[in-house]
């Protein structure tokens, strides 16, 4: 008998029972905090490869709102117009530019044996953005680890970065993403950092603490308000502006119609001061940029059908029902051209034929070239 009474059989049995217990706990906690699968760049690119969309919605996590819009657009057009959302979690213009160069372009420009484009259908690009995307760092934290091209990396990109810089909090984000994807079915893994399990268990045991929830809500609301107000002094970091220019330039070179879409913000988080400073400055300059580059500009920051109740508890993302309403509203209005009803730019011909560079036939809310 080995030391401590451990035989391989006992080791195996103990390990199996530990894993079974872990799995049972995980399943039991699904009711408390079910994992929410989120579209990430990898999966989005796989969908792109298979779907050959007509519209690309590139942006941060907000681009996920365009999944619902894609469904609505498909319904309206009988499937002839298809939106592919490419959300770069925590992204800004520099990460978007990286994703465009390293993930999207190789697919866009892939050709078959005859030299024809494999996916020639893309006609519109929606660059989904907000003021935060133009700042260098996350205002208030100064942390560069939050701007995450690592969310879009592949193993070769990760290894190249480790070779150059060693293992850093920045590139470790890639491993976090891979780990989370590998355990996408697990509540215990997916809830790390969100604490929905502990909150849910507390509620289950003690009941809802309305006063504490209200206090937390108010506290977070004040935090958001001051963050947006403070954003004015961080806007338009030169590196981010350069990346924005590169992104628009690249799509224009490809002959694709570009629309800059300012994403809706939760009304309660916006003070008058924020509207007059951060948001006004951002909107004005982006509108000017769109005019200069001859691309469409749609500002949904305040002009949208959403109320505070349509936003998630993070005050940032829109709930599924809100996304559906936003999609219908936008497709009836500023983004109606996606269904070919209003405006139009590239014409019906495929991208390969080189239509459209002259694009920019103006926008519903401004941005005449």
């Amino acid at each position, binding site marked *: 008998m080995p030391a401590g009474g451990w035989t391989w059989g006992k080791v195996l049995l103990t390990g199996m*029972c530990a894993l079974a217990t872990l799995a049972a706990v995980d399943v039991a906690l699904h009711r408390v905090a079910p994992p929410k699968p989120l579209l990430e760049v990898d999966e989005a690119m796989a969908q792109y490869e298979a779907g050959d969309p007509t519209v690309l919605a590139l942006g941060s996590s907000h681009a996920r709102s365009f999944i619902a819009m894609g469904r609505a657009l498909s319904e309206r057009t009988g499937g002839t117009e298809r939106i592919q959302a490419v959300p770069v979690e925590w992204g800004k213009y520099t990460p978007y530019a990286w994703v465009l160069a390293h993930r999207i372009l190789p697919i866009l420009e892939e050709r078959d044996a005859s030299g024809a484009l494999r996916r020639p259908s893309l006609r519109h690009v929606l660059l989904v953005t907000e003021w935060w995307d133009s700042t260098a760092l996350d205002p208030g934290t100064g942390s560069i680890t939050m701007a995450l091209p690592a969310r879009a990396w592949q193993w070769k990109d990760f290894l190249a970065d480790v070779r150059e810089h060693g293992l850093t909090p920045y590139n470790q984000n890639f491993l976090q993403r891979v780990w989370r994807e590998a355990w996408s079915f697990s509540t215990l893994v997916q809830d790390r950092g969100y604490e929905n399990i502990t909150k849910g268990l507390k509620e289950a045991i003690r009941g809802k603490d309305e006063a504490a929830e209200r206090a937390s809500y108010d506290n977070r609301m004040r935090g958001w308000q001051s963050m947006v107000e403070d954003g004015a002094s961080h806007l338009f970091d030169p590196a981010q502006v350069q990346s924005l220019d590169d992104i628009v330039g690249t799509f224009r070179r490809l002959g694709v119609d570009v629309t800059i879409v300012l994403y809706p913000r939760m009304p309660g988080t916006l003070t008058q001061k924020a509207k007059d400073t951060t948001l006004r400055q951002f909107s004005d300059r982006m509108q000017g940029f769109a005019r200069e580059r001859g691309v469409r500009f749609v500002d949904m920051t305040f002009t949208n059908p959403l109320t505070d109740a349509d936003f998630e508890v993070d005050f940032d993302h829109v709930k599924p029902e809100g996304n559906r309403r936003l999609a219908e509203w936008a497709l009836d209005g500023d983004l109606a051209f996606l269904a070919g009803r209003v405006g139009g730019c590239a014409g019906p011909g495929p991208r390969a034929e080189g239509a459209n560079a002259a694009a920019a036939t103006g926008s519903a809310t401004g941005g005449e070239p």
Partner: protein
Amino acid sequence: MSLVGLEFAFFFPLVFLAHWLGPRRAAWQNAVLLLASVVFYATWNLGLLGVLAAATAVSFGAGLALDVLGTPAPEAAPTTPGRRRRKAVLVAAIVAELGLLGVFKYSGFFAESFNALLVGLGLPDALPVLRLVLPLGISYTTLIQVGYLLEVYWGRAPACRDPLAYAIFVGFFPQLIAGPIVRARVMLPQYLVPRRLTSAGAASGAGAFLLGFVMKAFVADWLSPRVVDPVFADPASFGAVALWIALLGYATQLFCDFAGYSLMAIGTGRLFGLELPENFRYPFLSKSLAEFWRRWHISLNTWLFDYLFAPLTTGRSWFRGRAGAGFLVVFLVSGLWHGATWTYVLWGLAHGVALAGHHAYDEWYKRNCRRDRRWVAWRKATPYALASWFVTQVFFVLTLVPFRAPSIGAAADFAKGLLGLGGAEGLGQRFGLQAGACVLFFAGYHLLEVGAGPAWKGRFLALPAPVRGVVYGLVLAFLLVYVPVGASTFIYAQF
């Protein structure tokens, strides 16, 4: 890379499989571990890998040279050419190893201190202050190599002739960041033979790793940002009770961080069929400072006592027979080893003086015991044991003030605050279920070693395997929920 980071979950299985699925030959196993160690090191700083490689080559070559020169007969005169040559090789190699450590770790400190002295005398700065990046684990690998050279020189261990085995002896990745400081006599024989993974080794390795992970990732990383760091960063904003809680929290954090790391390293070693030395043995049960240092960072303290204290107090120098002075030197060196700052020097000085004082008291007490047996009975009585335990622990905890503080001035401010007024205001929001779990774990970990504790442990280990599996599964689920995201690096990695 760190043993507690997510990257280790990707790295370890690859190394484990390569190690055990390849041929069962020492050369293969050592090659896999060396390659893994190189990758592990390179993830910190690829450029400084050359420093470790050069240092390892020097000590390996010096060991061979000492072997070639042979061990002279004990009766040979110290001035014989063979002895002189061996001594010259030893001194040159140790100077090279310590010189490297000195340049990277201490040159800035000594230059700054010298310049400050000159400025105090009204003279201009004279020395340039170098700001060098400290190679990972250099404090540990240097002591490992110097210990090896001394062992070979004294004829206590044979020189290693296998460069692969020697390289992995110095740079085995689990011990690279923060020890344990391994000995040639213990580890080299293990690297020279093929290892076999046993069921007991796998179980105890996984168990040690899990226990270490709980200590580090749950206890230490929970305490640090909530209880310790905010108070040490701004002690003036907190009352005396909060300062005491933070200080006790730091003692717990430091122990769980370092002992946790050591256990994870030992556990990882066992999973590769290697037995690294124990580094902690329930230090908070100690009833004297001497006992404390036999239980805390055992591999460093035995190194200092074997290779510094013993030669110093038994050699031909002024220190011969002067244990008190020996303690002072050993702990000043220990303080400086921890870091090139005056706070560590103060910490080392405090422990050196206290150990010298305790040694003198012990001698005095023993004399009384020899005169009157009642002194023996008093020492064995519970009140004496409790008082000894209390004084020892309070002294250790208090010396953590300079150990943790960024400067002597900050340490003085913190110490003054401990004697002041005020409660635990400002800390109130930071306590909850996790705080209770941390205290319970820390207390339970030590209490399971006293009284009926070992029997309880035995009862748990005698439970059927499925029951133990369920318990381990629940522990893992608890960790997944409560371990803070983004576990930090290890405190002792900086030394």
